[in-house]
């Protein structure tokens, strides 16, 4: 029990003193996950929007595929990206394995289905009367689509934040493709796993606390956004 309390005290001391190693790991985590989220949003939001607004052959299959990929096991994604980027793999010539870019790639694959699928859900739950109202006021089909996307903004934002939550907490994929190299590809979750193995609980605990604070912040933001979205009553 004393060692746990001691671990917590040392962890708080690391946070309070803004330990350089700790800060480096946090910034790298945010950079990798932030970049992955940005890329998955740039691709995922338009994909989710098109699937939500347009009817085309194969649409149902794509929706099922996206929903299935929402629960992709990170180690499987890690393995897949590893095979692609390893020296003997099709993209091995790029020399990306064990770099932050490889981690961004893996996390993008994990976040994309979440962003796209939740964006699609947000679009299809917009009351059809909104599209009709836009048309009666003289909107072109493109302007009508933009109006529907605007109405779905809170749901779309929730999807993006959910994607961020997923990649921030992920460990399996980035451990495989990043290699957990100190000062280069070591992020919060991989550090926690490594330091726990080594019995260095103070750094693991400090990062665990930061991760929990980030998770709490994400959930508070999500809650606020969802409350704003519930104003939609379809009058």
């Amino acid at each position, binding site marked *: 029990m004393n060692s746990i309390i001691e671990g917590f005290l040392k962890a708080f001391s690391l946070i309070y003193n803004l330990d350089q190693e700790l800060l480096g790991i946090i910034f790298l985590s945010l950079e990798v996950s932030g970049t992955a989220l940005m890329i998955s949003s740039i691709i995922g939001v338009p994909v989710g929007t098109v699937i939500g607004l347009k009817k085309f052959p194969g649409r149902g299959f794509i929706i099922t595929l996206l929903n299935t990929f929402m629960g992709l096991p990170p180690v499987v994604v890690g393995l897949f990206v590893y095979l692609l980027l390893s020296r003997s793999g099709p993209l091995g010539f790029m020399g990306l394995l064990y770099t932050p870019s490889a981690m961004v790639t893996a996390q993008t694959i994990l976040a994309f289905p979440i962003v796209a699928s939740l964006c699609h859900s947000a679009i299809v739950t917009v009351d059809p*009367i*909104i599209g009709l*109202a*836009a048309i*009666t006021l*003289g909107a072109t089909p493109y302007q009508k689509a933009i109006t529907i996307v605007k109405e779905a903004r809170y749901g779309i934002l929730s999807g993006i934040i959910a994607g961020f939550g997923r990649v921030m907490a992920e460990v399996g994929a980035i451990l495989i493709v990043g290699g957990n190299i100190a000062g280069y590809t070591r992020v919060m979750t991989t550090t926690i796993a490594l330091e726990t193995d080594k019995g260095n609980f103070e750094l693991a605990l400090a990062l665990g606390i930061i991760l929990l604070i980030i998770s709490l912040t994400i959930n508070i933001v999500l809650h606020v956004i969802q409350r704003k979205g519930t*104003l939609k009553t379809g*009058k």
Partner: protein
Amino acid sequence: MSLELVVSNIFKKYNGEPLLNDCSFSFNKSGTYVLTGPNGSGKSTFLRICSLLEEPDKGEVNFYSEGVLVKKDIELKRRITLLLPKIGVFNTTVFKNVSYGLKIRNLKVGEIEKRVNSALDFVGLRNKKTQKALTLSSGETQRLGIARALVIDPELIFLDEPTASVDQKNTEIIEDIILKMKNDGKSTVVITTHDMAQAERLADKLLVLKNGKLAEKVK
């Protein structure tokens, strides 16, 4: 009125049953036309067809400007508007709801501000301009819909049961707004209602839709 609407031999089925059965009419004079009929008689469908929101199964809807047939493109659609019974409030402020139709027409900010203020004054909602539109009462929501439709200066405006879901006080306010529109004479107004007394109060021309047939009733 420069835009004339001619509806010729319209047929429309709903769930396999004939709803509109050879309906024809010319809306060729400024004023207020009121379309009455029992619930389910096809009033809303008729209005949706007239406003190009729905296609008839058979028959034609044509618009003429000074005797010349007008092409049914976005330009024509921007000269007419339909206020649905559930208006479709955008999740934003009252001002932004009303300015929607002007923004999509790329009008200048100053012009938008002026016209929106004028439309809000017309329906008595100027004091609610910055309020979230979804927090308005049902009567105010209906008035917001009228302002949103009027601000774009339509030549033909269709109002589908504008007082169906509002209280007596708001019904009177909305009727006053419609009478003001009638006096302004800027647009031709076509209203549906199942309230005969209201129809008598508002109509220049009274139309009755019954058993799929449309007929003009002499007041």
